[in-house]
């Protein structure tokens, strides 16, 4: 199943690529062994994510989901960003092939990791969901992804 036009657009022209040198939170998820690593940088002011950037190593959908996910949380309150699901990312991209659904999970995780880092730096401990990206992100067969959609 080929990628949707939205995926290709975000792969071609990814939004928010790069780093934030003085980031308030940085999250990195995934595993080079599995072929995907996402690193997200956030800047927070008054509980609002004022800026977000990403660096991603991975396939086209990893890049596109990173791009879309950053777009979806930029300018949003942290609470709202925390509610972003992988499903919302997939929908915004007009679907992903089943075998690539894990990328959207990774994007969700990366945002949560960055926010957790932001809280950690403020001395607050935040529990991440245990739907850990590495469990579903890695070395899976087609059908495995289906479960997340």
């Amino acid at each position: 199943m080929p990628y949707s036009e939205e995926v290709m657009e975000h792969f071609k022209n990814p939004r928010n690529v790069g780093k934030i040198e003085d980031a308030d939170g940085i999250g990195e998820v995934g595993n080079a062994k599995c072929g995907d690593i996402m690193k997200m940088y956030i800047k927070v002011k008054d509980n609002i994510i004022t800026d977000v950037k990403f660096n991603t190593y991975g396939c086209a959908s990893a890049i596109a989901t990173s791009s879309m996910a950053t777009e979806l949380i930029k300018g949003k309150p942290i609470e709202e960003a925390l509610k972003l699901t992988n499903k919302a990312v997939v929908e915004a991209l007009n679907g992903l092939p089943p075998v690539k659904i894990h990328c959207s999970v990774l994007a969700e995780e990366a945002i949560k990791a960055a926010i957790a880092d932001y809280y950690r730096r403020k001395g607050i401990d935040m529990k991440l969901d245990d739907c850990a990206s590495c469990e579903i992100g890695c070395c899976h067969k087609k059908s495995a992804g289906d479960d997340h959609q």
Partner: protein
Amino acid sequence: MRFVYVDNAATTPMSEKAKQALFDAIDIFGNPSSMHSAGVAAFRSLDSSRQRIAKCLGCEPRELYFTSGGSESDNWAIKGAAELMSRMGKNHIISTKIEHHAVLHTLQYLEKRGYEVTYLDVSSDGYVTAEQVRDAITDKTGLVTVMYANNEIGTIQPVAEIGAVCREKGVLFHTDAVQAVGHLPIDVKKENIDMLSLAAHKFHGPKGFGALYIRKGIVLPNLIEGGAQERGLRAGTENVLLAASAAAALEDALSNLDEKNRRIAEMRDKLIDNILKIERTRLNGGRSPRLPGNVSICFEGIEGESLLLSLDLKGICASSGSACTSGSLDPSHVLLALGLPHEIAHGSLRISLSDQNTMEDVDYILSVLPEIVNRLRDMSPVWEKIKQEEQQQP
């Protein structure tokens, strides 16, 4: 935008000869098993296609059985041989770690049914030796199946020598020659091959057509039962049309082969030499013997699919590992078998050239590839880490 197709190991565009043969045969519509004139015309067309393809392989026409492609041929050869073996009380098969899934998954199917399979390691440059095969043969061994040339890394195995060992030991020898037929000169008799699989779409013929050579004297059980077609061994109304097209394609592919291959290898070598100038890249598979059209390179810090899709945006169709395995997220088993770590195997790019490519194609690829690699590495946290580590160790 320029369009450059360099994914010929996945499949090839049909040659003009193959298309013409198809157009010419489109009205030969009879069933070759029918006795009337329409049937006889179809029979003659099919028969002539068989003779022409057999000649290209150095076998007799009656040793050549038409199938629907490389996968069916592989399944038939291996499952059939397994049944023959078990009638003789044998249950051991020898293969390699770098076979195509059509072979590997068939072997796994047999393992679930009690057969034992030895998967030979390959050297770090992607070769097995006849000695490895000899050492692995036991009195339970009934079949050796080793591919002629690898679809991902282009390495060519010592088939004639392996065949000689098998002949000496009285073990059946099958080779998946899907990547080799039409690209290398092959003589099944001289190379001691008992069974050989081929697929027309890899040499500018049509998709959905292949063949299995079965040496005279081997009575392989059917994979597909039914009518008496293909000397009773492969049922189904014969694909007269695609057979004609495949025969024309193969003859065409083999004409002036040496000259073509010299030209293709020149393009290949220019690509390899220049791509390897990009830092932190490595060639997968040895330089020789190697398919003239195969370039397989790993780029550290980037992932193959994003690389190939970036190339696609520039009009270049290449591949990352094998197209057939796109259902999986694992890095290619072939690259892992070379001993590459997962994170490096993920960054593979395969460029596979054919006679239809030109030096201009090569130059175009070389002109766009570096900036694509840079762009992907610039956004890669893995590359960032590599660079940091480099700076720490001066």
